[in-house]
């Protein structure tokens, strides 16, 4: 009696266990020849990690190493000596390099100022949702979708003093002879030529981010403000701007980092000239690395630039977070 009862309980528990085992899906690992789930996870991300190591992390450390040596890439057989910090001290004492940093700073400042003001203005207009605003949005976005190489090349043509549309249009409007509008050849105009092209190309990007910011402000906030008798001017400054500010700052961050290392556009349009008026840091770096072949020194320069961008971006992101948390 007692024993049969026991058997019944045992049987029930065995059946329950079996049912549970059947119901639980077998781990993927069991099905793929003895790998554990974790191993399979590693297997999947390994190619990405390998690629990242090969083309990002390794070159970075290699460059750090080279920056302390006298290595020259055009003399692979020469003896490589560790020369300590002397590359860094030469970089930081070189007036030409400081000049290129200053040129970069000017570019970053003016492109960001123009792109933010125009981009936000366009976003504000587009956000009014007038008839056909979708069409205009698409049209405005086109420059951003082009390749920088294409943009650089066709602006070279547009800027041509003899045949270029830009010089023709300016001369048509102002009466200045086209031969005086040497956008890429003149010391005064060349920096602005680049600022104009960069602004033309990247303002849509800033506009898009600002538009996202404006669209995130719910209508009823404006309705409340309207009932509270806030003028459109006050609504703009006390609602629109503060609420879109994190987005604007984000756009500035993206464009700032991007333009700090601006290369392709300058290289295509002026190559740093005339003289060194448009020689931004990245152009100076390229010349040092691939014209003077001072690989060690240019590595040190690259590291200095990297630390500068990284530091500035970090300070900025802190500020951005403070604004967002308000």
């Amino acid at each position, binding site marked *: 009696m007692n024993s049969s009862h026991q058997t019944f309980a045992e049987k029930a528990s065995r059946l329950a266990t079996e049912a549970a085992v059947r119901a639980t899906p077998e781990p993927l690992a069991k099905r793929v020849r003895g790998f554990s789930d974790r191993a399979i996870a590693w297997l999947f991300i390994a190619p990405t990690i390998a690629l990242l190591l090969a083309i990002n992390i390794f070159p970075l450390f290699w460059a750090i190493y080279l920056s302390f040596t006298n290595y020259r890439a055009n003399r692979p057989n020469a003896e490589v000596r560790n020369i300590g910090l002397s590359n860094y001290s030469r970089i930081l004492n070189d007036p030409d390099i400081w000049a290129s940093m200053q040129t970069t700073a000017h570019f970053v400042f003016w492109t960001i100022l123009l792109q933010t003001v125009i981009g936000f203005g366009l976003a504000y207009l587009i956000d009014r949702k007038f008839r056909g605003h979708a069409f205009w949005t698409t049209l405005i976005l086109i420059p951003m979708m082009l390749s920088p190489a294409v943009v650089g090349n066709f602006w070279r043509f547009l800027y041509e003093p003899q045949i270029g549309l830009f010089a023709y249009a300016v001369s048509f409007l102002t009466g200045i002879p086209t031969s005086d509008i040497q956008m890429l050849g003149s010391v005064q105009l060349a920096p602005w030529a680049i600022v104009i092209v960069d602004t033309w190309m990247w303002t849509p990007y800033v506009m898009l981010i600002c538009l996202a910011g404006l669209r995130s402000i719910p209508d009823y906030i404006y309705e409340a403000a*309207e*009932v*509270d008798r806030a*003028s459109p001017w*006050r609504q703009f400054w006390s609602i629109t701007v*503060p*609420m879109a500010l994190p987005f604007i700052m984000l756009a500035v961050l993206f464009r700032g980092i991007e333009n700090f290392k601006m290369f392709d556009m300058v290289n295509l349009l002026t190559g740093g000239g005339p003289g060194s008026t448009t020689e931004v840091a990245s152009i100076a770096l390229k010349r040092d690395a691939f014209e003077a072949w001072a690989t060690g020194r240019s590595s040190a320069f690259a590291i200095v630039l990297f630390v500068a961008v990284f530091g500035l971006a970090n300070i900025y992101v802190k500020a951005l977070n403070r604004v967002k948390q308000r």
Partner: protein
Amino acid sequence: MADVILKGITKSFGDKRAVDAVDLHIHDGEFVVLLGPTGAGKTTTLRLIAGLETPDAGTLHIGGRPMQGLAPASRDVAFVFQQYSLYPHLTVYENLAFPLRSPARRMDAATIDARVRQVAKMVRIDHKLENRSTRLSGGEMQRVAIGRALVRRPSIYLMDEPLSSLDAKLRAELRLELKRIQKELGATLLYVTHDQIEAMTMADRIGILSEGRLVQIGTPREIYTDPANLHVAARLGQPHINILPVGLLPGAEAPAGTAKVGARTEHIAIARQDGGNARVDWIEHLGDQNHLHIKVGEHRLVTLADPDMPVAPGDGISVALRNPLYFGQDGNRLDGRRLA
């Protein structure tokens, strides 16, 4: 403060008549509550008065001034929105001060500060003045939203379910407080709610909205004892009014044409009686009273009973009507007015 007069106000969204020829005269200093099911057009009515929507037809006067074509800012109304709609990047203090800082008002900083602190105390948010408005609970946000209206002295306050997300205790407190403030200021107030207790206790008059139409308007007592039709009768009363066929229960002398009899608790006489005409189906204990679910043949009805009434589910009971409400085929009341 001023009279607010709506005449034939109509508003459609596409095919949907949200507000249908509403006539409403809100007197200076009056507290009017709009009651209606969801989608009845309550919010739309308030928005039309505030100027946030433009009516398709009809006229609106505030303080004798025609409002046609006037922007919300020039109408002198204060609005508490159904979604709290605080300014998220501002503190509670800044939110409350915002309407007073309008340059048109030319109010000096000391006056603004005093007013803000006074109102913050009224709506019990003075301990959170420096908090960001996004860091508040729903109930706190709602109080700030009410406060932001109360700092002003507009022609009319428009409030869209302002107490809906508060807990029962705070709601009861603020209900009293709001009524007190309104009386003290002599404020004109149009108030939307789903809550019949709010409507009954605060309103000078209640307007019942149904599918965009103002079905009936009157004092809470009129609306309760003299509903114009089935719809109005169903809005008030706890438990819900029982709608019964004619002749189901004794004690009624239905006038000719009666299709439905409406019986609230006070229209129903019950007595414990074995072999009576009904049976107790279920009892809900609410503490101070019981909901008695009764079955009469195939029909169910609910009424209140003393908690110590000696009945249990399954017991026989006798049920009779006592002066109930009679409704015709179209749902309108048949027996005449009881007040006056």
